[in-house]
Structure formats: C-alpha cells, structure tokens
C-alpha cells in the first residue's frame, strides 16, 4: 500500500492556495457528463452534494434515513469554531491551527489542520448567507462562546441546536439542487459494498431498505461521508442507525484504515441508569462555560449534593488544571472523571458520575441568563432524568462521542483507492488523537463545501475513465457479495438477538479499549472478540426476509461489521505503545497520571491494510513532520 499524502510544500499559509491553483479543472459544459456518488447526508455529505450540484456535476446522494435532513450531524449541540476574531481577543488562523494541532496531541498533519483553520472563515460566511440563525448580540453582530481547549471565544452557535441549523442549511442547499435536477436523492437506501474496477472506485452496491432491492450504482467517483463508528461501543451518543458499514466494506476492498483506536470519550453525558439503556445523551460542552465540575472529597460520601459544604467538595478540574479549569479538553476531563470515580468518589446510585453544578453561575448571573444560554439543554436533562438542574446539580459521566480514526485520506481527501474520497468524520484527517469541541462541524463543512468540490474535479479532469456497465465482473461480484452476506444472516436462525451481541461487544470494548487501555486488557479483548464473532455467525437470530422492510436485517449487517472493526481497534491500540489524546495506555503515563507521548517512535499515522478474512492486517505508517508547531508536552495546567 502506497501512502502518498500529496502534501503541498512552501509556506504553510500558501499551501492550500497553491494546491488549488495547480489543480486541473473540468470545463463547465463537461461537468454534467460526470456522475458522482455521495454516501451520507450529514454536514459533509449534504454540503458536498450541494456544492458539486451547483458546479454542474450529476450527483446521486444516498442515505439510510427516511430523509437526508435526519443525518446525525443534526444532534450536534454546542457550536462551530471559526478564527474570525470578532471578539478582538487575540484569535487568528494561526491560533486556531495551533490549538487544534495541540488539542489533537500532535498526531495530525500540519498542512491539513492549517487549511481547516483557514476555511473556517468561509464556513461562517456561507452559513450566514444561507439563513442559519446564529446567536446575535443586540447590535446585530454574531455572538460567540468559549469551548474546551481554547482561551479565546471563537465558537458560533444557534442555541443548543447548532448542528441542526447547520445541517438544515446544507440540506436546503442540496434540496435546491434536487429541484434543479442536478442531485438525485436515494433515501432509505444503504450502501453495502464498493465497486472497484481496475483499481478505481466506480460505484456502490445498495439495498433499498423498503423493498430489499439490491442495486449497483455506477459513477466516476465516490464520496463517502458516512460518519463515525462510535456505535461499536453499543452505548454511545451516536444515533442508533450510525454505523461503520460503508467505510468498513470499503476497507475490505482496499482502502487503508487510519488510527482506528483514536476514539473520543466525551466528559459530559447523562450517566447510564439500567440494562435496557439504548443510548447515551450528551450534555453540550458549552455547559462547562458556566458549570463547575466537582465530587465530594471523601470517598463514599452519600449525602445529597446540597448538604455537602463547600470545603468538602473537590472541584478537581479547577484544582488540577488551574489555567483551563472546567474547560480542559475532552480527553483530559474524561480521564479525570474516571480517576475520581475509580477512587470511590463518584456520585449517584452507580457511583459512576460527577456533578456539573450551576449554582454559582445562577447566583452570579441570575436564573434568566442561564435559561437563555442553556434552557433547552436543561429541559432535555430534566426530561431524561426527572431532576431539575436549576436546583440539583447535574450528574454526568463520560461516553463515546466521536471517532478521530477513519479511512486514510491524502491532502485531497482521497483514500488509497483512487476515485474514493472520504469526508467528515468518516475520514481520519484533521483531529489527531483528540478532537476539540466545536471542531467536528467545522471539519464536516470544510470538507464538503470547500475541499471536495475542488479535489474531485481535479481527479476527474486528470483521469481517463472507461465506461463501466452493470455486467462488468467487478460489479457482478460486488452484488453477489452483498446477496451472499444477506442470505447468510437470514439463514442462521439462531437463539440470540442482534442487540444482545452488540451489547456484549460494547461491554468488552468499553472495558478494554475505552478511556484507558493496557496490553493485558487489549490481549483479552483480542481473544474474546473473535469468539463473540464466531458465535454471532452461528447463533444470531435474524427474522424475516430480504424482500421487505426489515430493521432486524439492517442491524445485523451493521453489527457484523462492528464485530470485525472492534478487533482492528484493539490491535491498533495494542501496537501504539504510547499515550496520546484519547488513546491512554496505562503503561505510558507521567508520574502525575498525564498521557506520555513517544514522539521518537510514534509520531506517525498508523494505516491498516486488509489482507483477507482470518488474516492479520498489515500496519503501514505515514510519518508526521512538524515545521511550525514543535511537539511539546501538552499542558493545560
């Protein structure tokens, strides 16, 4: 596997400009002759579809939801970063670049992150023009708030529904292209395989989720924007339908998978209450602007929070990280929460929780201001827990929230399979080993609006593609493969439900490949996951037929892929003998329990190449070099 990242050279400020200038262009009249398949309609997929449609390409866009507007970007709450420096607090493109690179613990490419920071400026402009109702000051200018890992106020927001509003903006732009006939939508349609012809991505195989029809869609390039794979943990803040199938099956067709073990555990989620729990709900990081996190100083202190006097509380983030305090980055805040709970100081019935307390902020600013800032989040909390966060502190605990790993892409967002582009959370590119808050929306839209439209054009203009028809052997083979998997799942007729396997897999991963990992645990997981997978293929119970609306079958296919991906995650975590960002190996820590990076041996991207069923995948590396920000110990003290 050749890993040519195609990184531009020269001064970092000019790299993206130069790269764009050097790109080949497709003449406007020729664009409609090209068909581009886009999988997924979240921020990256919808914005890419809209922009490619506007340019005149023939776009076909697929999503498994009943409407493209429901993709899980919709659930992002807090905000989107941009280096506008509207607050005059010292922000700049370089500072956003620096914060993001450092926040990712120096495991991302400088060139990519700099480009992201540059494009952040255009994103806000574009979204405002589309009518995204961002929060405003009384004078009519855009409002900002602070997010973790930054000392400037650069996060733009629309109440606690920023993801929803940005997604609706992109969705509406895409629907405009649907009306113009340039984008064709395929909702309730799931991608189940990638068609590779002569080494190039030329199409996908889909299943119509209403009729069960299996179809090959052919085109000149494929853009995967299918999101992250955090649902591998079963309990996560993802939507129930979020899955890894599109990227996993592309991996099995030859796309390299980068840093699969880099997963983000978000510190502020509503704690688990029982076995029936189907998902975890995030409480936006923006709450840490005004909420203070604490646990009792004494282990096992079961008094209600309001009866614990001030001097017996440990505001541990403020104590451990005085300069960032409650706004320490996510990986650090999550680990700190785990640590205090491991010490027996956790709160709530299960002891797996910490308080997020607004009483100081309410005293200081008044209830009305807090209501204005976080009203909908407080309501959501109350609805789920039955407790009133205005009077009783919230209880929160970390949960899986995002995956920094994903398919490897070069600077053009193209995977190791030519013609297969990957955008948004589905790729690995910009967040290194830990993503900062309000950066996911930024990356999704940067990829979709401002990178993919150029780089796909460059690929098409520079590549001669022969016509492919549905009777091409590669096409028929992919369709057969999908039919075969479906048939196999339906014929097992075992005793256990799909969810029971998924839950068990989630427990294994959370225990051994979650917030902290060690070699012994990872080896245990690497022994248990194949056993569970073997039982799945022998004993899973998938009811019904293929030729109908069958939610059980949909889920079974996705869990089958999670059962394979989980193993790769553990393998990657075991091979990376250092701690960085969200990947915390207990063997590698400083005396005071912070992550200990090993830049001499691991300043690289690990890229895995599939070798066939039952064979160990190959690990390749792409070295990371730093010219502008030299890796230092990442301190938030």
């Amino acid at each position: 596997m050749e890993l040519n990242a195609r990184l531009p050279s020269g001064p970092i400020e000019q790299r993206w400009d130069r790269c764009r200038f050097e790109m080949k262009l497709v003449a406007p009249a020729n664009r409609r002759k090209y068909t581009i398949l886009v999988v997924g309609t979240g921020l990256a997929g919808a914005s890419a579809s809209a922009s490619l449609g506007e340019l005149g390409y023939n776009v076909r866009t697929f999503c498994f939801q009943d409407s493209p507007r429901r993709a899980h970007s919709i659930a992002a709450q807090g905000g989107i970063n941009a280096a506008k420096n509207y607050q005059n607090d010292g922000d700049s493109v370089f500072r956003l670049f620096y914060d993001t690179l450092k926040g990712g613990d120096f495991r991302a490419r400088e060139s990519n992150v700099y480009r992201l920071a540059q494009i952040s400026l255009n994103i806000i402009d574009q979204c405002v023009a589309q009518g995204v109702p961002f929060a405003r000051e009384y004078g009519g200018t855009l409002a900002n708030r602070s997010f973790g890992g930054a000392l400037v106020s650069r996060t733009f927001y629309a109440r606690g529904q920023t993801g929803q509003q940005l997604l609706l903006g992109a969705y509406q732009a895409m629907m405009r292209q649907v009306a113009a006939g340039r984008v064709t939508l395929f909702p309730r349609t799931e991608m189940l395989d990638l068609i590779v012809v002569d080494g190039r991505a030329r199409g996908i195989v889909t299943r119509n989720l209403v009729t069960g029809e299996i179809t090959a869609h052919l085109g000149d390039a494929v853009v995967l924007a299918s999101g992250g794979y955090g649902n591998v943990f079963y309990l996560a803040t993802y939507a129930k339908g979020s899955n890894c199938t599109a990227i996993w099956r592309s991996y099995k067709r030859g796309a390299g998978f980068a840093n699969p073990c880099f997963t983000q555990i978000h510190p502020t989620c509503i704690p688990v209450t029982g076995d029936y729990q189907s998902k975890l709900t995030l409480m936006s990081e923006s709450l840490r602007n005004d909420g203070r996190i604490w646990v009792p100083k004494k282990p096992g202190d079961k008094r209600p929070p309001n009866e614990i006097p001030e001097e017996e509380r440990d505001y541990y983030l403020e104590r451990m990280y005085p300069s960032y305090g409650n706004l320490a980055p996510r990986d650090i805040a999550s680990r700190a929460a785990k640590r205090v709970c491991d010490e027996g100081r956790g709160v709530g019935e299960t002891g797996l929780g910490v308080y997020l307390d607004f009483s100081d902020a309410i005293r200081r600013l008044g209830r009305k201001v807090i209501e204005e800032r976080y009203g909908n989040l407080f309501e959501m909390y109350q609805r789920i827990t039955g407790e009133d966060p205005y009077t009783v502190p919230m209880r929160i605990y970390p949960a899986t929230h995002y995956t920094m790993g994903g398919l490897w892409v070069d600077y053009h967002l193209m995977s190791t399979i030519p013609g297969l582009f990957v955008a948004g959370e589905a790729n690995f590119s910009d967040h290194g080993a830990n993503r900062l808050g309000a950066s996911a929306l930024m990356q999704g839209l940067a990829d979709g609006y401002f990178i993919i439209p150029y780089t796909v054009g460059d690929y098409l203009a520079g590549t001669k593609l022969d016509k492919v028809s549905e009777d091409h052997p590669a096409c028929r083979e992919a369709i057969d493969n999908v039919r075969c998997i479906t048939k196999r799942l339906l014929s097992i007729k075992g005793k256990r439900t799909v969810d029971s396997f998924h839950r068990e897999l989630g427990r294994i991963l959370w225990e051994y490949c979650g917030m902290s990992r060690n070699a012994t645990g990872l080896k245990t997981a690497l022994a248990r996951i194949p056993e569970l997978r073997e039982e799945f293929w022998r004993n899973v119970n998938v009811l019904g037929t293929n030729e109908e609306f069958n939610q059980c079958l949909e889920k079974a296919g996705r869990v089958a892929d999670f059962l394979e991906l989980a193993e790769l995650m553990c393998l990657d975590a075991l091979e990376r003998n250092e701690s960085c960002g969200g990947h915390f190996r207990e063997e590698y820590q400083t005396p005071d329990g912070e992550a200990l990076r090993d830049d001499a041996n691991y300043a690289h991207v690990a890229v895995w190449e599939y070798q066939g069923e039952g064979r160990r995948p190959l690990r390749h590396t792409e070295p990371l070099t730093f010219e502008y920000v030299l890796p230092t110990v990442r301190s938030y003290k």
Partner: protein
Amino acid sequence: MRIVLYIWRQPHRDAPGRMVRYEVAKVNPDMSFLEMLDVLNEELMNRGEDPVAFDHDCREGICGSCGFMINGVAHGPLPGTTVCQLHMRHFRDGDVLYLEPWRARAFPVIKDLVVDRSAFDRIIAAGGYISVNTGSAPDGNAILIPKEIAERAMDAAACIGCGACVAACPNASASLFVGAKIAHLGLLPQGQPERYRRALNMVAQMTQEGFGSCTNIGACEAVCPKNIKLEVIARMNRDFLVASWRARREARVEGFG
C-alpha cells in the same frame, strides 16, 4: 410497571392492518418509550415473532425520525416532547396505550408505525432555501440582524420535520411545517429576495402532495414537540396572499405589454 399496548400492525403499504394486543411486564420508569418498545421487540424476536417496526434514530428529540400516536395524541401526553424523549415515569402501572402511525393521505404507511414522509422533502425542494451558491457569501458580520429577529427566526427554524402537526390536524394540513420554514427564512434579511416566490411555490407543493388546508384549529401547535407557534401559519398566509396578488398584477402588466 406493567403496560398494555395495542399496536397497529401492517406488513406493508398495500396490506390491510389491525391493532394487536401486547403486554410489557417489567417496565422501568426511567426507560424512554422507545426503550420499552425495544424490550417488547426483544421478547417478540425471542419468540420468533416479527418485531414492531418504528422509525427512530438520534433518540435525543432532534432528528425528527420518531413519532406515532399514543392514545390518539401525536408523540403522547407530554407537551413539547418527542416519543424518544418521553419517559415511562409519566405513565402508571397497568396503563392501556393505543399506538398508531401518523394518519394522512400524504404519509402512506410503509410498515406498522413507519410512514413515508418524503412529501416534506419535496416541499423544501420547492423553495425552502435561500439561493446562494457556495463561495459567494459576504462576511458574516456584513449582514446585521437584530437579536430579536434572529431569535424569532430560530424559534421557527427549530422545526424537526417529524410530521406530528399533520397527524394531529383533522385536515391533515402541513401548514405548521411549511409556515415554520417560510417564517424562518422570511424573517431574515437574507431571505427577502425570494420571500414571495418561496411562499407561492411551497404552498403549491403542499397542496399538490395531498395535504389539507388550514382551518385554524390549532391541534398542530398543541402537539408540536418544538413548540412552533401558530403565528407562523399567519405569516405563511400573509406572504402567500401578497405573492398571489403580485403574481396577478405582474400577469396583468405583462398582458398589456
């Protein structure tokens, strides 16, 4: 808690459906309504029976996937709440609940509680956007928007497109959904150039999809999980009237020209 459910079962679009009785014995009050259905479905699958199909995704009340009638009320008894955020602590031991899909000609049933809401997408495609190509935007702060206007636009933009308004309306009108988008975009300065054309096209599409007309009953507002206000419909009607009048005048002028 023990809950008795009568659920609409319909194998596919063209098959007849019927209510079927189920019982869920061990309901935990902290469960969400959908988690209770998960438990029921696990039991059904373990008995080899077809699980109940229902749409759901984010389970945080924002994606708009979920929704069905509980005892005749869209999204159930708790105001301003989708079924995925409705918890069982709001019900009592022994409650009998009737679950039905959204009923509207424009929302055909796909299976059980799942309906086809693609008509909403087609209404948005008819004009629910501001026409601005990627790359052509001025600086974000070049357009000043008073805070109150931004807040009102946001109130309307909060619509999640779940379809509860249609299901609750005796006329199966989609006016709250359409009005919300017209209000969101029409309140903002960026939305002015296409304001009237948008109203005409979206209302025309709504009618063409087979949704009924609004007769100011207000059932939609009562069940809306995002508390979208009836005033958005008034705004839609106003914009539509102005647009129709302008369109007639323009046609007359052209006729004389």
